[in-house]
């Protein structure tokens, strides 16, 4: 079936898409502010500050590039992005080029194993068996009603904007897998529904990295870490800050709590 290609403005396009893709519109009707297209991609590329990126990228308000969706869909190539930031930043662009390399790395793994990205690459290092993890993503996580400001905020942002900062992706994935003990595949599928940059390789293999099936240890975090890189915006508004925050602990305590059966130390520090 042929679709329309001429629209007078964005609202007209969106109204047309709602009619043309009714199933998607019924499941998740949100529209992101992020614009598609080569012009928008070039504008994003022009704004990159490689040095600021290196200094601030772990912070939720850091100078990240937001190139992911354009790279995912090949609107820009990784080669072009690499060249552009090296021309501008020289050695100062090293950190950013290394992050680009992560994409290339996951793509190479995908080229090698194909749909194998949906299976555990290695065994779990958490002390739990694969069958100890729930098959399905609990509704309160997807709906953003866990009562944890941070995780609910991330779930809302994912649904509304189709984007999450890398650190938020890591925290949310760790929460799903290690605190709620849900199979990484369930979380990965949820992300792929919503992310504008949803990419089977980068997404699934990152989930596996958090889970420990593609890493030497699981990734987890504590409240201090989340508070630091969010300026405490979630914690300040959270009812559970002094009332059962599951992330408030030292890494040693969390290790005992989350991975009591792990044979080796899996500390993050």
């Amino acid at each position, binding site marked *: 079936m*042929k679709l329309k*290609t001429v629209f007078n403005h964005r609202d007209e396009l969106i109204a047309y*898409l709602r009619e043309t*893709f009714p*199933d998607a519109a019924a499941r998740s009707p949100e529209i992101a502010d992020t614009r598609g297209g080569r012009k928008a991609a070039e504008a994003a590329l022009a704004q990159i500050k490689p040095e600021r990126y290196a200094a601030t990228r772990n912070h939720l308000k850091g100078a990240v590039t937001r190139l992911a969706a354009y790279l995912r*869909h*090949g609107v*820009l190539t990784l080669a072009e992005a690499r060249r552009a930031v090296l021309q501008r930043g020289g050695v100062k662009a090293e950190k950013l080029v290394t992050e680009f390399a992560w994409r290339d790395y996951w793509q190479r793994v995908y080229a090698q194993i194909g749909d194998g990205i949906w299976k555990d690459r290695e065994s779990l290092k958490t002390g739990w068996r694969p069958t100890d993890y729930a098959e399905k993503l609990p509704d309160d996580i997807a709906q953003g009603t866990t009562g944890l400001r941070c995780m609910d905020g991330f779930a809302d942002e994912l649904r509304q904007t189709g984007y999450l900062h890398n650190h938020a992706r890591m925290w949310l994935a760790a929460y799903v897998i290690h605190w709620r003990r849900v199979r990484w595949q369930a979380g990965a599928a949820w992300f792929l*529904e919503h992310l*504008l940059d949803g990419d089977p390789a980068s997404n699934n293999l990152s989930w596996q990295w958090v889970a420990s099936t593609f890493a030497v240890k699981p990734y987890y975090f504590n409240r201090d870490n989340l508070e630091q890189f969010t300026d405490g915006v979630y914690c300040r508004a959270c009812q559970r800050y002094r009332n059962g925050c599951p992330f408030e602990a030292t890494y040693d305590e969390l290790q005992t709590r989350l991975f009591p059966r792990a044979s080796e130390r899996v500390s993050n520090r």
Partner: protein
Amino acid sequence: MKDVLIWIHGDCLNPHSPALLAHPDAPRVFVFDEEVLAHYRLSLKRIAFMYECLLEIPRVEIRKGQVVAELAEAAREQGCTRIVTVESIAPRFAQLRAKLQREHNLPVEVLPLEPFAELSQTEQARIELKRFSRYWNPIKAKALALNQSFDW
């Protein structure tokens, strides 16, 4: 070259794609793959993003349905006997490509995309994919240097 139909797919929504540059006058078609949309439950915002990318490709024809059937129909309508596209590592891409040839006798030529970093065969051979560091360390110096041929 009237016989060429360009197949635009979701891994290269780029108006400067090598396929478009090689055949600037050829008809070009993108198909929203209904099986993929349903399987991944892709959200409307993702479809909108992709649609906006597509609208910046001059004279693009956008379709939805079964990819192979839609491409075959477009080829018939335009009188095209072969398809040109660019590489994709998605397993589904290889399946669709084989099916176009098998069921519709449409050969698919696949053009390469510029790699992240140009590596020699020796460098390529040193890469191991077990961990990121084993991939990155052997090629790091090369990837962080500007290739002069592109520097003007």
